[in-house]
Each structure stands twice: as C-alpha cells, then as structure tokens.
C-alpha cells in the first residue's frame, strides 16, 4: 500500500540551481496536486492536474513547472531556485477531485541557501 510517494525527503539547493521533485501514486487517481506548506500559512496550491497531459496553475505557480505524461507520475520542476522557495512540498492525489478524499505524500523539505 504505497499510496503517494515523494522523493527526495530532504534537499538543500544553492540559489540558482534547479531540481525536480518526484511524485508517484499507485491508486490510479486522475487528479494530482502540488502544495507548499509554510509555517502559519497553511497549504498553498502550486499546480494541479486532472489527468495525463492536462495541467493547470494553482495559487502560487511562479518559479515552478509541472508535467503529467502518465497517470502515475506528477513531477514538480524548480528552475533557478530562490530562498523564497524554501518550504515543505506535498504531493496529493484523489480519484474524482471535488468532494473526495485527497491522499498526501510525506513531503519534501527543501532549503535554498
């Protein structure tokens, strides 16, 4: 019962570097999401996808990119990392989107120095 798997769990980046946060789910969910969590700010939606080949921006998409080539995978790309992107990133998935449970991964803690 893997559910939603995120890698890596921790990462330190230097300013200007790039990286990809990986997210995979094995529940055959169509809907997938990327959130970032900052202290006292809740979770902010970065990007989401309603199916393979379809992605859309959330509340805070600047500085990020996503792709969805398969149902299972939804990687998040950070280009030119900035200190403002220091955060905990969560990937989630759900079967139908609205009014159904979203399952979250365990998160990736990213520090940009």
């Amino acid at each position, binding site marked *: 019962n893997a559910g*939603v798997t995120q890698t890596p769990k921790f990462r330190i980046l230097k300013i200007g570097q790039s990286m990809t946060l990986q997210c995979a789910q094995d529940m055959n969910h169509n*809907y997938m*999401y990327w*959130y970032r969590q900052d202290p*006292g*700010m*809740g*979770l*902010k*939606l970065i990007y*989401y*996808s*309603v199916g393979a080949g379809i992605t*859309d921006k*959330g*509340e805070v998409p600047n500085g990020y990119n996503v792709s969805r080539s398969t149902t299972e995978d939804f990687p998040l790309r950070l280009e030119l990392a900035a200190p403002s992107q220091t955060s905990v990133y*969560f990937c*989630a998935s*759900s079967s*139908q*989107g*609205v*009014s*159904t*449970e*979203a*399952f*979250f*991964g*365990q*998160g990736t803690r990213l520090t940009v120095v």
Partner: protein
Amino acid sequence: QQQVKQSPQSLIVQKGGISIINCAYENTAFDYFPWYQQFPGKGPALLIAIRPDVSEKKEGRFTISFNKSAKQFSLHIMDSQPGDSATYFCAASATYNQGGKLIFGQGTELSVKP
C-alpha cells in the same frame, strides 16, 4: 474571496477537555468542507468532512458544526487525548472549481496535555 481563515493558530487543552477550532470563508460557491490532521513529519490526512446541506456531522469524538448563513464551520474534539496532538487544517472547495482544488486555512497546532 478564495480565503479560508482559521483560528486559533495554537491551542492547548487538558486531557479530557474539548478542543474547538474555527474557520470562516467568503466564497459562497464553496460546497465541500473537509478537515485534515497532520502529525509532525507526515502529510495531512483526511479526518472528517461536511457538505452545506447538513449543519452537523459527527464521527466518534470529532464533530463538524456548519453555519451556512454565517459562512463559518468548526471542528470539535470531545474528550481530547494526547494522541490528538497534531496540526489541524480546515479546507474548502467548490464543485464548479474543476480539479477539486482545496483552499486551506492557516492551520491550528493542538497540544493536549496529560
């Protein structure tokens, strides 16, 4: 209009007491209101959820109260236990809003003292 405001930011309750967390929203199109529980180092997990056609939903020690006219909803944890110590997030989404995008509150860090 997309905001969900949550209070308090932190809460300390004695074992056996009642924990109450409140949320308010602005967007009247929201029609799904879940609460998520998050333990340190873990991702959030769904605790309980309500739709606005009912005013209350209870699951064990956890109850959601919903006031549509006031655009407010709250989580009540009865007989609070140390194992309930976690961060709680309220959230909201709208059926018209494709993709099931959840708008989260700021979170409440609950500590239940033995």
